[in-house]
């Protein structure tokens, strides 16, 4: 993994995100300030609808903030144009989602390889998908399509895809939701190994078990972010 030279991988200043829902305005994220040092594994916990996923999306440049700034590895991401932002997502960030996020028409190895399609790195290691599938224990399912894989296997393929471009930051939204304990444990172990290599990881979760694996736990309550005191 490429490790960032910056002290803080993420710096968030006065970040807010509001939505119009009918006549009223919902503040999904409300003036959040946050610094996440490079190489830290952070979990964000909170009730459903507390704004955790929205905050994660703001960090990853998937949704535009109503106000405030997000600096990723020193770059103010909302000053980037679409091409630069796409490249940043492609090269620096790996996302995992709370659902099986594979492309149904591609087999496992092509799904893992997909992120290398968008970047313009001619030195991309094209044998990496095989190594990554071996890493997540699916070396024998490389040519299986998502429909032929169990939910847990699909999640593991998605995790392998997240790692394809050697991201410096992993943003994981409920990465082990509705998975059995064994698969959850495997995935968390993979996160731990990656984190040991210096990759910053932010995990949004409901699970105390998952949260407890992080070095730092943050709590989101009605759009406000606080350090978890529990």
């Amino acid at each position: 993994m490429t490790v960032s030279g910056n002290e803080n991988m993420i710096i968030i200043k006065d970040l807010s995100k509001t939505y119009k829902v009918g006549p009223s305005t919902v503040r999904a994220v409300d003036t959040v300030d946050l610094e996440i040092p490079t190489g830290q594994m952070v979990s964000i916990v909170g009730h459903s609808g507390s704004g955790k996923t929205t905050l994660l999306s703001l960090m990853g440049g998937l949704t535009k903030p109503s106000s405030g700034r997000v600096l990723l590895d020193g770059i103010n991401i909302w000053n980037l144009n679409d091409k630069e932002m796409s490249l940043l997502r492609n090269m620096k960030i790996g996302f995992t989602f709370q659902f099986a996020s594979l492309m149904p028409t591609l087999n496992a190895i092509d799904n893992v390889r997909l992120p290398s399609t968008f970047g313009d790195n001619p030195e991309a290691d094209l044998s990496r998908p095989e190594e990554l599938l071996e890493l997540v224990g699916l070396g024998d399912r490389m040519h299986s399509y998502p429909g032929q894989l169990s939910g847990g296997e699909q999640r593991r393929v998605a995790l392998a895809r997240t790692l394809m471009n050697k991201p410096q930051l992993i943003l994981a939204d409920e990465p082990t939701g509705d998975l059995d304990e064994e698969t959850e444990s495997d995935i968390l172990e993979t996160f731990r190994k990656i984190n040991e290599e210096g990759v910053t990881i932010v995990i949004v979760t409901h699970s105390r078990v998952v949260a407890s694996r992080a070095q730092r736990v943050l709590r989101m309550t009605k759009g406000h972010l606080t350090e978890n005191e529990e």
Partner: protein
Amino acid sequence: MKRLGLLYLAAQNLRRKPFRSFVTIAIVGLASGTLFSATLLIGSVDRSLEVGMERLGADLLVVPEGYQESGQAALITGAPTSFYMSRSILDQVKATPGVEQASAQLFIESLLSVPCCTGRAQLVGYDPDTDFVITPWLVDNLNRPLEKDEVIIGSLILANKGEQVHFYGQAFNVAGVLDATGMGADESVFMKIDDAYQMAADSSMQAEETIDVRPGQISSVLVKMTPGTNIDQLTQRIKTNVPGTMIITANELSRSVTDRLSGFTRGFIAIDAIVWVMSLLTIAAIFSMIVNERQREIGLLRAMGASRRFVFRLMLVEAVFLTAAGGLAGIFIGGAGLFIFKAVITTSLGIPYLWPPLLTFAKLTVITLLLAIATGAAASLYPAYSSSRLEPYAAIRQGE
């Protein structure tokens, strides 16, 4: 191991809903096929007229009154016909001011399905002394006049040079085969008029039917005008000077064919316009559906680093794939259909037909294909644009 390309991703996406892809291909194929085959047909008729008129080599044709239509049919489609008038008409036509050359022809219908005869053909006797239609071909191709009992045959007569054909119990040697014109000449057999009279005289003894024609009778007079003559005025003069005759001009022949085609052309334009609009709307609807269905995937692609441009191009390429496949299918099926049903179409419409040169064929293929692709691109433009503008987070959430 290779990178995944845009084309690969687009092709994989299209495989997920084979029936929907098939419907899109089919509707574009229908539009392209209709356009291709109808344009090919119209173009082939035009070419046939051009070549056929050149082969006819005359500015106008004088026929007995009442036989204008069957004369036209014989010239255009080769429908065998026979009608006669006195040879003295030839002299009267020749004497008309504005006539540079005039030559008589004799039309005889061949007998069908009888042992004596080769098959359906329009037998045409020409006068070697005055002819200006067959003779130039003989000079160019045989370098000699026709001998007794020799014939020149149209391209659709089933015989080769050097073989014999039989009409009314008499054998004729094939001295040459004319190039295809798509018109009546292709189904005609040209012989010297004296041989035709002789064949008629012998028919009572040698054939199952007698040809009721005598020397001194002719069927038509081919006329070449003096340069600078007004064809309408000459037509009027011949009608006045030579009573009991009708005039068929080259322009009338073209007009006759054009008239026969006009209903078809109008119908074709209407149908094809409807089909193209339908395909445009169908593709637009299908791609709007695709964008809607794939919102989450589009969001995921964007999260993985796909730019707006990539998503836009992906949608566009999918549409182009489908419409190009539809265009190719339409061209193939339309072309094959025209090839198979050519005889039925030309007979029912009463039009000549000559396949266009390869270059024209290739141009039409390319134009039809480009039009199909342009239709796909145009129809998918807005859905592709919408998909590229989706905010990744919103797209992922809306797809949930």
